[in-house]
């Protein structure tokens, strides 16, 4: 009976509308943050930090962005990587062209640029729905990457069409070790996750979900479809844009536009669906699943001393099979699985 809410009575609505109304959740989250901020940078190896945790956090942020759009506002999108690319390339250009621009501000500007592109490409969503919309968001994907390869201005006329992210320097402190980059990414992601959580529990979040669940009814109740959907596109793209900038600045360093390929869009969509459509936690769980599982499988497969090509193919098959397996066990994703586990724990040891 570790996990009980019994005895925790909410005496005010204020208390009840806290982000995490259950004490244990609050404690768990706080300790997780403390561990992430204090312990992890101390103990984790450079490998864990720079090859696992940083991409995990960045992908979580992108997944969160997509989740706002797809999970909360119900607009299926396959253009995530394009918005990330806009964020990255815009940040790059802002810094390159406005010397002395604080880098965090550049990220925000990058995010805003992505939001703008998001709004432009979100316009069709007013008429188009479901898989039709998903397939048309591919237009964004291809068009943006095409622009980045075609317009030399966007890559600052670099001969090979790649951009090299400038060094991250904030208030004179240079973020170049894995641990410092990790902390920076963690801070950005944690802050943005908090903001997302706030939006979702307020009226904006409800407007998104209402539009997702039944747009006609939402309209009748007084939500304006256009504004709600476009806001979702904007916020989502902003998140993806910032994630894209981090992807370039805190992870890859030198990037070509193709790093933001359709493949990446799909991977982020997988994260959202596996983790849980319409769940902030799910974005993190999904990112963990998609980032970590292949690594784990890779290590396992190679420890069996199989021929590498066999191992690689098996890895792919197991990965696919696990996705299906998890969907069968819980179609609403890992977040829901987690929630059920909690519900069970709450009842434990008395079933039902």
């Amino acid at each position, binding site marked *: 009976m570790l996990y009980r809410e019994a005895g925790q009575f909410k005496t005010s*609505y204020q208390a009840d509308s806290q982000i995490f109304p259950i004490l244990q959740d609050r404690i768990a989250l706080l300790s997780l943050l403390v561990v992430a901020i204090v312990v992890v940078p101390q103990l984790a190896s450079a490998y864990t930090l720079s090859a696992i945790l940083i991409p995990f956090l960045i992908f979580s942020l992108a997944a969160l962005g997509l989740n706002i759009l797809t999970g909360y506002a119900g607009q299926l999108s396959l253009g995530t990587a394009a918005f990330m690319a806009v964020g990255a390339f815009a940040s790059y250009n802002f810094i390159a062209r406005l010397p002395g621009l604080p880098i965090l501000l550049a990220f925000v500007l990058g995010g805003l640029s992505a939001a703008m592109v998001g709004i432009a490409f979100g316009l069709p969503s007013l008429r188009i729905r479901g898989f039709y919309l998903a397939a048309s968001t591919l237009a964004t994907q291809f068009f943006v990457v095409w622009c980045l390869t075609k317009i030399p201005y966007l890559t600052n006329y670099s001969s090979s069409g790649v951009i090299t992210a400038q060094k991250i320097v904030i208030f004179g402190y240079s973020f170049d070790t894995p641990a410092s980059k990790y902390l920076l990414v963690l801070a950005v992601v944690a802050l943005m996750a908090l903001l*997302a959580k*706030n*939006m979702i529990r307020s*009226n904006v979040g409800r407007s998104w979900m209402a539009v*997702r*669940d039944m747009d006609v*009814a939402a309209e009748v109740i*007084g*939500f304006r479809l256009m504004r709600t959907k476009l806001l979702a596109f904007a916020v989502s793209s902003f998140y993806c844009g910032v994630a894209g900038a981090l992807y370039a600045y805190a992870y890859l360093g030198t990037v070509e536009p193709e790093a933001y390929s359709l493949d990446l869009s799909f991977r982020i969509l997988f994260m959202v669906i596996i983790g849980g459509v319409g769940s902030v936690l799910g974005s993190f769980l999904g990112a963990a699943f998609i980032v970590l599982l292949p690594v784990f499988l890779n290590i396992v497969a190679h420890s069996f001393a199989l021929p590498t090509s066999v191992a690689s193919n098996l890895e792919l098959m197991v990965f696919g099979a696990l996705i299906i397996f998890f969907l069968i066990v819980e179609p609403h994703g890992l977040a829901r699985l987690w929630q059920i586990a909690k519900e069970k724990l709450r009842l434990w040891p008395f079933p039902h």
Partner: protein
Amino acid sequence: MLMNEPDNRFEAALANDSGGRKIGPVILDMQNISLSFGGVRALTDISFNVKQHEIRAIIGPNGAGKSSMLNVINGVYRPQQGEIIYRGQHRKNMDCYAAAKSGIARTFQNIALFKGMTVLDNIMTGRNLKMKSNFLMQALYWGPARREEIEHRVKAEEIIDFLEIQAIRKTPVGRLPYGLQKRVELGRALAAEPEILLLDEPMAGMNVEEKQDMCRFILDVNDQFGTTIVLIEHDMGVVMDISDRVVVLDYGKKIGDGTPDEVRTNQDVINAYLGVAE
């Protein structure tokens, strides 16, 4: 009741529980409304009006055009002909947002709740037009946004209490049985503190006891908040008992309009709908 009235109507209603219902002037006037879908004529030249504070029932056989009429009133459908006069304003058709903004709320025949959201959230959505803070403030969940959220939460809780659905406040509505969903839907509409409440078969799929409860809710809303109610219902017992005036549609045409007693004895209505005089 006007939109800019203070938000504390619930308390006000509680405080002076006078219950005196005075039927006022015509608030909504539908004139010569015609609506068709391709070849299907859902409504043909229908006129009727709704007075302030009254309970107005629309009855008629299946496919008569009742739901379509409600859809016209709040702008889901645009009639090809006719005029809607609401609070003195003449319009060719309504628009969903404008309708909601000017105090028209409704429930649907095939429940249209937001399935993925909890009961509380569903009811909170009903209050969206009254929320003023912008999304940035909401994202920060700071100051006015936070206060506003809590203020509205109080209202939502009042409705939850009123409808006696406290126990399921945090349950996702998709999991609720049909009858409770209907109640939540009513709650969502009430949360908007509407001037006119359009109810499309609010009692379908309920047993007598539940219908009694629902009637009570409707009467209370009408009594205490003075809300005008337009109601579609197939249970003649209910319609005859609680409505002030009844309009009868058949095949998209109006075949009767009047007090329950008048309608009950109207031969056309008996032939088309009631079968036997009750």
